[in-house]
């Protein structure tokens, strides 16, 4: 056996950035093989495309009120029927999708990344970092949502921020204060993971904390993060309509899936006029399911032990 051990030059070379770019690329390649996940992805993309482009082809895009066409069931001129103000539901559904999809996905990305990061930091460093992050989390968790939303609403209103933009600002702010739940979950798993033997191995290698966190620990939490993420999207889309009660959501006539559902809130609507709530309901459902399919696929793709 001829072995020559090459001498490594002991000079330090400039640091190479190699955080996981290949991992995601790889995950995507593997994801491409998951049929269901691709169905989810394609569905989302199609839905987004329809929502953003669709209204341009609709004759009812102006959202004009039509007293002659109130609460009409689906017909040739109105494929999904009309609402209580005689507006075309399909058009509103598409217009609503622009806001709901953006809000749902953006707030998911934001809140999951903040929660994961802070939780990971707390669990990883423990000590004072943990104390500070967790005590802040405790305080944030004790803060009642209502007054906060009201104050935010008042401030935004006083600054005369156009109503249709407020929802985005609000979602960002909600993510900024809504992280403690996820952070606590991430932290607790982190506490177990950091004691694992492979982290000792990472310690022996003298890896940077950044690498330990993002390369070794967080990937082991992807399943949790993916679940939280998929659940978050639906939550955000639905909670948008609640926000308008506090002067924070969108204001009519701007439609969102949430407020379209909300507009049909009696049993009579529920029973007799399904076209009012079924389309937005299905839109939300389809979005959530697609994201879930995508998430499940991603989870499997990132899980080395799952091969099909």
């Amino acid at each position, binding site marked *: 056996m001829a072995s020559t051990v090459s001498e490594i030059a002991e000079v330090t070379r400039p640091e190479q950035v190699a955080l996981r770019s290949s991992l995601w690329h790889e995950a995507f390649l593997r994801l491409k093989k998951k049929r269901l996940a691709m169905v989810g992805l394609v569905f989302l993309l199609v839905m987004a495309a329809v929502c953003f482009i669709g209204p341009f082809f609709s004759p009812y895009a102006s*959202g*004009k*009120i039509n*007293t002659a066409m*109130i*609460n*009409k069931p689906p017909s040739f001129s109105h494929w999904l029927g009309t*609402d*209580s*103000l005689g507006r075309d539901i399909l058009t509103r559904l598409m217009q609503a999708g622009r806001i709901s999809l953006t809000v749902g996905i953006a707030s998911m990305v934001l809140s999951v990344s903040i929660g994961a990061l802070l939780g990971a930091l707390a669990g990883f460093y423990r000590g004072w970092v943990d104390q500070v992050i967790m005590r802040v989390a405790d305080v944030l968790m004790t803060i009642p949502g209502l007054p906060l939303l*009201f104050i935010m*609403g*008042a401030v935004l*209103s*006083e600054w*005369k921020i*156009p*109503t249709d933009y407020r929802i985005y600002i609000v979602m960002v702010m909600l993510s900024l204060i809504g992280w403690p739940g996820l952070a606590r979950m991430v932290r607790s798993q982190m506490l177990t993971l950091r004691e694992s033997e492979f982290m000792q191995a990472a310690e022996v290698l003298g890896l940077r904390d950044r690498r330990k966190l993002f390369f070794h620990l967080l990937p082991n939490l992807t399943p949790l993060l993916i679940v939280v993420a998929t659940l978050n999207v639906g939550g955000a889309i639905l909670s948008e309509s609640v926000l*308008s*009660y*506090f*002067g924070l959501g969108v*204001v*009519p*006539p701007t439609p969102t899936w949430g407020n379209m559902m*909300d*507009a*049909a*809130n*009696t049993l*009579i*609507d529920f029973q*007799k*006029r399904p076209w*009012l709530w079924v389309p937005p309901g299905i839109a939300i459902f389809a979005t959530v399911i697609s994201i879930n399919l995508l998430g499940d696929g991603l989870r499997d793709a990132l899980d080395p032990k799952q091969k099909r």
Partner: protein
Amino acid sequence: PATSTQTATPSTEASAPAASKVQDIKDGINLATDLSKLPEAAAKRTDTFIAGLTEPGGVFNPFFYHNGYDGNVSAAIFESLVDVDATGKPVPKLAEKWDVSPDQLTYTFHLRPNLKFSDGSPLTAEDVAFTLTVLHDKTYDGETDIFVASIKGGREYKEGKANTIEGIKVIDPQTIQITTEKVNAKSLVLLGGQVLSKAYYGKEYKPGDLEYLRTLHGKPLGAGPYKFEAYIPGQEVRYLANEHYYAGKPQVEHFIYKTTEGDALQFIQTGEMDYNSFTVNSDNIEQLQQLGYVNINLYTSSAYSYIKFNHSKPFFKDKRVRQAFIYGLDRQKILDLTYQGYAQVANVPISPVSWAYTEDVNPYAYNPEKAKQLLDEAGWKPGADGIREKDGQKLIVHYYTTKGKLGEVLIPIAKENYKELGIQFEAEMMDYNAVLARTEKGDHDLASFSTTMLIDPDDGVEAFSTKKGKSGFTGTNGYSNAKVDELLEAGLSTLDIEKRKAIYKDLYKELSDDPPYIFLGYRKILSAHNGKIKGLEPNPFTGISTSLPGIKIE
């Protein structure tokens, strides 16, 4: 009687209108069509009347509650000297009659003989005097403002300069004389309010300390048709018929106010409840009609809804602009879409149910052309982007409202209507209290509200007075019109209804010409009750409390 009915607090009602195929339904009581459908639970109940009520809070004292529903609860327990009828005119209750001195400053109430509280103790003029005295206490924090009546010596008492109130004189156990310092048409009903028992509520009374009363709010004692039995927080208030009631013990032995949220039709359907009120719309009416066994009560509310201008904004200084805002808004359409025909456009600040109502004012029918013309005249010319401007300022208005059906309909329509006029309409929804706070600060240009039940016509207009109306919910943020001020004074300075009618007619004309608000509409109140219950006639001013003593279950 300071009763407020269920619409006192802004309800978050919101329901979609139905494709209207409701059969004829008229104002008043629409009798049940088929009593045989009555659910078993309701049919079996022969000595109990169960009515729905949104959230009573446990302060069952007509002068101390802060929650309108507690007023409803108290109304059954406490009886007043003077009540109002279905048009808002005073009628005798515990007081057999009353005399008003020629200068309209002194009131003498003659109580009926042998009045008793529900515990059997006698109710005398002393009790009335005690009640009025408590209201003058400096630690009194209730919502009744007795100083509106300007009883002689009242201020001195409050400030601790006198031990008694000079203007209150107990002539004999059945007669009390009250001297006031200022003529006010509203004094009679105010002075002739509900009566607290001195023996019960006044035992520990020392001027300047009403703390002790708190413990009694949950154990009320009055002379009303029913006496308090039990309160189960969040669930129900139970009553027993009062055998000492002046008009005889009510026939129905038990009465229960059941706490319900929203349109609790299910309880009527299961027969667990006899009476409840509902959001008015054709869906609800249709459902009630289908039940067959309920009497449906429909009447116009004594309140009105309106959009308030912020008169401190320069562009609303010109009354032509305000008129244009009224002409340019399709109020009929808004009401039709919101209430599906169960509301009518308002042009005066008083409901059609009141004796003071008149139609003799500018109807401001929807007329965008006229509106444009008025704006042109006022110097607001369309700019490059179609928005009108004057002196470099664009006509952009901010409107605040609460979340609810009305807002959901009004905003899109107003946006459309005003855009046509060249006005940019920016709407925001927020919670009721926040709208109040923001308008109080004058942040708004327009904001919509609804009044509470209005008993006296002055209640609907007092906000327009330059003196009182500076700010606040009842205020106008700076509306000022000398003629209006004058007429307001005049309207209160006589007790003669005919004279007042004429004065208010003039006032309404003036308000129509120089509008302080955009009057929106009067909506109907919908309630229904089990057809077996006879004699229940809900009214726009007092709800069901007036007819409570007389109901029967067949």
